[in-house]
């Protein structure tokens, strides 16, 4: 049980090891607090959708499972969006469309397809919590690095501002790609093996995607990199 929980935090960290959900990872991590907010929002959606899908796993017919999952996830994403709008309007403002875009975050879809549809409720919720913590931790790490170098603050508190000239480029798009690249390289180095960028294999959409099927058939990698979404 503990293993299910910790699996997502280190061994299968969704962001740095499975390379899923790259869009919000790059987009919202200009400051650490945004990363934290996004991570918590996505975790809540993930817990809700994993629990619901796990409960419904014997009821949803195999053939229409994809639209059913998408609807369930979109429902939870909407609930979270409304909650954030009501209780943390500043966060809603800074996350912008990335809040509704949690719907197409492939971490959530991937866990629904790979885990929740095959396991019980408790295990699915634990898996969701572990994956959520892993995602949040990666986002906070990235946000902290970018904020510290780019603005000279950490969670809004002045750290190096004044002493070291902030490098604005870090909070601009190129800085996002760069810091993410360095973090993945670090994770590769520490774990001693390359991130599982089996291309489409890691993506939640793989089971119903022609590109991945072709790749599996011919044994050719469909392309290195993240999944989809």
């Amino acid at each position, binding site marked *: 049980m503990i293993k299910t929980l910790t699996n997502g935090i280190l061994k299968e960290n969704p962001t740095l090891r499975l390379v899923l959900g790259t869009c919000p990872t790059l987009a919202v991590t200009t400051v650490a607090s945004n990363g934290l907010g996004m991570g918590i929002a996505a975790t809540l959606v993930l817990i809700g959708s994993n629990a619901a899908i796990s409960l419904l796993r014997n009821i949803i017919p195999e053939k229409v499972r*994809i639209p059913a999952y998408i609807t369930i996830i979109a429902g939870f994403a909407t609930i979270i969006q409304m909650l954030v709008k009501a209780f943390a309007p500043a966060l809603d403002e800074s996350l912008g469309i990335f809040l*509704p875009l949690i719907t197409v975050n492939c971490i959530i879809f991937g866990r629904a397809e790979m885990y929740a549809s095959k396991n019980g409720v408790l295990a699915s919720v634990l898996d969701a919590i572990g994956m959520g913590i892993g995602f949040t931790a990666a986002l906070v790490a990235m946000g902290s690095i970018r904020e510290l170098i780019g603005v000279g603050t950490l969670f809004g508190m002045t750290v190096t501002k004044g002493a070291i000239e902030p490098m604005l480029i870090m909070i601009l*798009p190129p800085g996002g790609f760069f810091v993410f690249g360095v973090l993945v390289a670090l994770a590769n180095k520490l774990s001693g093996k390359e991130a599982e960028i089996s291309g*489409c294999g890691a993506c939640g*959409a793989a089971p119903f995607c022609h590109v991945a099927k072709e790749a599996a058939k011919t044994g050719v990698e469909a392309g290195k*990199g993240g999944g989809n979404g």
Partner: protein
Amino acid sequence: MITSLLSILVAAILTDNFILSKFLGICPFLGISKKLDTAVGMSVAVTFVMVLATAVTWPIKTYILSPFGLDYLQTIVFILVIAVLVQLVEITLKKYIKPLYQALGVYLPLITTNCAVLGVTLLNVTQKTMAESFLNSLVNSLGAGLGFMMAMVMFSGVRERVNAADVPRAVKGLPITLIAASIVALSLLGFAGLTQGLFGA
């Protein structure tokens, strides 16, 4: 009129490039930009679905959801419309336009869960200039698609070079690709302020 449309188009392609400055559609950008032909095929399919999805979701939001106070259903409705639309496009192409299906068919299922498509439809109903006019929204979607294509094509060229380079073991594969993407994104910063300069504020 024409100037404002052109400025939306140029902004969507260059200054607010969907992949390199808005971070939407990163996964296909990293996943299928390895070869030029797949990059072009995917981009054409994305552009097509983006414009089509906007043509359907914008009227739904403006004439059905907003008047009846159902704005909170926006995300669910949009993602379902996109999913259905992608299926319809796939079936139609398969039946009537075989060559196009063979070229684009494999990319279509990937597009349903592509955040660039849901992203552009959501932006088109939230940004003021787009929400006001249907035509602006369509042009913005077209520009977003073309910008997506430009980034994919440009990056597939960069990637062929990067793959041939001898880099340290730890940064091999994804990390060096991301660092290369960072430099490509840096080059697009040079276009900042271009639209104001060309078309006035």
